[in-house]
């Protein structure tokens, strides 16, 4: 039997409420408000209370997929990354770095956003970086 409570931040709206993920026997079973968090002071909204449900959903993507002529094929990471990198390199070689765009996300972490724009700017060589927060 294991039970732990892991502090985190709710990933729905931009308020930034402190939550605790409740993990029992290795499974994510619940979300609780962090009582002493300066933002939400022990309260949450309906989305926050159910934050764990999207994470444990059966519908989560579990494998990289390649879409060939409308058919989704499960592939390993090396194949997926290799395919994507080769195609990107070809497109950059043929049409220049500004033929590539990267959409970063208001849902991923700061570290990941930083890396994503670094990827666009340094690895691809374009400033075509934006995110959907305008939308």
């Amino acid at each position, binding site marked *: 039997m294991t039970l732990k409570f892991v502090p985190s*931040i709710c990933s*729905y*709206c*931009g308020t*930034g*409420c402190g939550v605790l993920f409740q993990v029992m026997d290795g499974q994510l079973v619940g979300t609780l408000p962090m009582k002493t968090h300066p933002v939400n002071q022990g*309260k949450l909204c*309906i*989305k926050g209370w*159910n934050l764990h*449900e*999207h*994470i444990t959903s059966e*519908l*989560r*993507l*579990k*494998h*990289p*997929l*390649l*879409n060939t002529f409308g058919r989704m094929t499960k592939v390993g*990471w090396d194949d*997926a*990354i290799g*395919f*994507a990198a080769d*195609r*990107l*390199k070809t*497109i950059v070689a043929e049409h220049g770095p*500004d*033929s*590539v*765009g*990267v*959409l*970063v*996300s*208001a*849902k*991923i*972490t*700061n570290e*990941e*956003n*930083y*890396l994503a724009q*670094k990827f666009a*700017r340094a*690895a691809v*060589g374009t*400033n075509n*970086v*934006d*995110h*959907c*927060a*305008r*939308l």
Partner: protein
Amino acid sequence: MAGLAAAFGSGAMTNSYDDLETAGCFFVIGSNTTACHPLIARRIYRAKERGAKLIVADPRGIQLSSMADLAVNHRLGSDVALLNGMMHCILRNGWEARDYIDSRTEGFAELEAAVADYPPERVQAITGVAVRDIEAMADLYANHGPSALLYAMGITQHTTGVDNVKSCCNLALLCGYVGAAGGGVNPLRGQNNVQGACDMGGLPNVFTGYQPVTVPENVEKFSQAWGRPLSDKPGLTITDMVGAMLDGRLRALYVIGENPKLSDPDWNHLHHALKKLDLLIVQDLFLSETAQIADVILPAAAVAEKDGTFTSSERRCARIHKAVEPVGQALSDWEIISRLSTAMGYPMEYAGPSDIFDEMASLTPKSYAGMSYERLGLDGLQWPCPDSDHPGTPILHTQSCARGLGKFHAIAYQDPAEMPDQEYPYFLTTGRMFAHYHTGTMTRISPHLDAEQRRGYVSIHPADASKLDIADGDLLVLASRRGEMEAPARVNANVQPGCLFMPIHFGENPANVLTNAEAYDPLAKIPEFKVSAVRVAKAPEARP
């Protein structure tokens, strides 16, 4: 955020949730706070129960309207006129903060001249808000300060979004509330890390911390740090990318954790654009509408499955911790990006998010430089936090604005790009409902949230419904100049006659088939989701 940056020099919420509770008056415009930011609404409740005043301006009747000291339903897209009308009344009565205006602002003469054209009688004609209500709003806001102005997408998602924001800033500067506890101009961010994505340089024109890519020293600094020569040419915004996809300039798109197909205006237009790409890579938790048409789909780890930081609306950068292993073979987004970059011939090797954070902080001197995982703890820190002894900054612009003087902008009212006409006689606006979030990919698969609302709907006023012989639950056909779609009716007096509302969360009733991708703010490039003209009718009988 362009509007805030132009006025104050920093595009972020000026105040913090804690000090908002000390406001003497709240002015909530274009934010359905109890549904979209419930834990900020709580701060309004608390202040209000201690005696703070509450003004709500929204084209719809929202939960906050029912408890406001003054609630008005201004016509969709008429925000600038309403705000100018308030300022007109404030100036006419001499309620402005003269000393503050003299010592801390510039451009007042231009503003004064501009709002002179907006006497309340004219504003009533544009907005539909009664003269006495406009005067009362001005009185409450100016004479019960400090007043906190709160807004959300109802202000920004317009062709005049930047003008709307600048008008909000004008109002706050006029009364001297910028830099004051319980005051300020406070955009409420719709997604958990919008602030962070912007801060991290997830924009076509800036590196981290809003360092422009057009400044040679910045390009030099980042080129050095990253070991590659970098471009100093600003990139394409998402709105421009769609055009570039259609004309073949943009060949490949790498989409991380977004579902633009459902969140973009004009679904059909974007669908064609995405189909023209040579390569679409989508990295997400789910097989979203966008992922379904991707060439490569990469499974990403969710919030409880990784470490990192988010930055909230109040500029608070706080840690998230890994609680469980990712499902299946999913990987953290940072690991996927590192692998892809390495495979592209630009190696990224990090021991973990903490390393990445430290690299970012070292390149972001003004805002994040003083932060580290150790310092963040569980409370986080609010930027600017320039050095490792700095306690963080709950309120911006306390002594002077980030740009020095607060700048007034003279703004004239413009109609939305599309107004109702004979062919498309109804206004349509879009938004969120309380149990769902954004494109619904996360909430609709959550059983408790799905139970609250399983399908999309169109809210229609009872008067319009009876005119069109529509009963609650009837299937309606909505059409705009872009396209046509069906959704069931919800007859509801919360919308104004002549105006329809649709939530954005439901892919099978995509509101964005109807909205206008051609109309967006010229500066911020935010599409006008909030206003389109449509016609509506009961769907042809298909009932038994």
